[in-house]
């Protein structure tokens, strides 16, 4: 089964920890991976990342696959393959 690396930053560390997680999963898309993570780490993750009305990624959140924002790939239907790295950020700002 494919191995995906997952990392969460800022407030998502509380759910996902402070290092890359090696996840073995047959989740084929980013959306299915989020479902898988929500089941394993708590449904808070789904609430933190997704808009309950549209089921899309909440404004200001960032989901990267190999460093590229999924909004510029295929969104939650972006396909994953063995060795991909998915990084999750809540909204951040600064100067």
């Amino acid at each position, binding site marked *: 089964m494919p191995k995906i690396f997952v990392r969460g*930053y800022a407030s998502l560390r509380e759910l996902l920890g402070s290092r890359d997680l090696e996840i073995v999963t047959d989740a084929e898309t980013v959306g299915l991976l989020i479902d898988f993570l929500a089941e394993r780490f708590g449904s808070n993750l789904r609430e933190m990342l997704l808009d309950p009305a549209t089921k899309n990624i909440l404004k200001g959140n960032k989901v990267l696959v190999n460093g*590229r924002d999924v909004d*510029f790939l295929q969104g939650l239907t972006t396909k994953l393959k063995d060795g991909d790295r998915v990084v999750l950020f809540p909204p951040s*700002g*600064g*100067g």
Partner: protein
Amino acid sequence: MQLKLLRVNLSNQKIWTQTIDDETARKYVGGRGLGVKVLYDELKPGIDPFSPENKLIFMTGPVTGTAFPLSGRFHVITKSPLTGGIADSNCGGDWGPELRFAGFDGIVFEGVAKAPRYLWVRDEKAELRDAEKLWGKGVWDTEDMIRDELGDPKIKLASIGPAGERLVLFAAIINDKHRAAGRGGVGAVMGSKNLKSVAVRGMGKVSVADLKGLEVAVRRAVEKIRSSAVTGKSLPELGTAVLVNVINEIGAYPTRNFQTGVFPTANKTSGETMRDKILVSNKPCWGCIVRCGRVTKVKEPPYQVEGEGPEYETVWSMGAMCGVDDLNAITKAHNICDDLGIDPISFGSTVACAMELYEKGLIPKEKLYGLELRFGNPQAIVELAWLTGYRSGFGNEIALGAKRLADKYNAPDLAMHVKGMELPAYDPRAIQGHGLGYATSNRGGCHLRAYMIAPEVIGIPEKLDPYKTEGKAQWVKTFQDLFCIADSLVFCKFLTFALNADDLRELTNPITGWNWTTDELMRTGDRIYTLERMFINREGFGRKDDTLPKRMLEEPLPEGPAKGRVNRLKEMLDDYYKVRGWRNGKPTKAKLKEIGLA
């Protein structure tokens, strides 16, 4: 509304007041806008920034010190010794509102004092006082000594340290011990005038046109600020360094003098790690409910220090930019910069340039007196912060800034600057529109004229693809105009993570009574940005200076998600001039007429 300026001639010690009429205030607002108007009208082109003819302007805005959220800020404007163009710098803390409580909206200094002086402003009165005993002291001692001398612990001070006194080209003005009017060498201009500090104390109130209307608008705004994930959660919890991991993960975190965009140990200097290891508490600027400031403490030797910060830019400039991942050393060096009065962005960028020059064998070892000037050495950044503040040893060369340093060693392409001012913490090869913002910034390498990170990385107000160039010109113009308004009314730009231009207009009108439409608000920003551009055009800047370092245009990023990319400025620049109504970097006559500058 009328504005009241304090005018101080340091050469003959005359002090008088100047009233700015409502018509001028409507056109230029205050803060940065009014500052550039004064400079444009009163300075002859070509003057030496260190001459008595240069003017150093401290300016608040109509909303400073009112219930307008995040309004505890002020702006400093002068001709830059670093770039030869305009230097203007925005700053937080408590000093700005205190000046308004003292009955003045701004202070304009001209001339040069014959001996060190500080200005003491209290409740509509002002006097120049002897600063001989303060000259040579760091900012922190200066503040303590003046408060002692004047017998009031609540006095607010904006001062220079040894760096400003000794004309380090990127010396800063520091207020409230840890807030900086950092960029462009404003502190050096203050030092050239023998002006050590501006002490302010005010017991007055600031009046507004419609207090009830303001209360309603503020209540609405506060709800939005609290419920925004950036201003309501990530900034208060993790400070600005929350950005470290985001920018690094997209491969845009400039590392080792922009040689790459990925720093493998970036997390060691992130907002998350700061919170785990050195954070003591939050610190707000005056009246701020976001409270993004950090009070910090490093216990472990050899870098023990208690102070504030570092912020995102500092954690980068003395961190990844120099290949350093030691948070304790960065925090120590950052506090040295606060005390000695140094812009940490330009400092770190110049040290990184020096590190690359040294590693390429271009700086002779003897010049370093045993300093190990290699990427990744935390001791080097701490030592150089001291040396630069006092212009001692190799610090005397760092004090020139990256452009002059690289020119001196015949490697001009190794200085990462625009118009002579060093670039900040985002690689434009990975973020196209942000690169256009850098190139067209009137004050030089600056991320805050057009903070394109908001749409291109964070996704506020909407998400734009950072790899594309289409449409970015209009976005850059809109941000530049809006942030002129932020710097002229004077409020913190972080407000724009939660509020849009309509919200800002609703908050502004009850204060000024100007009844702006949103369109008028944005046109005023356009006018101010264009007047600034006219100032730098007059100093010789044009299309040739609206560019990026060669590395950004020609050397592809070697690794990371944006591997192989350069900044495609040529695809955006002409479009930008078109939306601005400029030709080759200069406003056309038609444009000037359109916005009331001709």
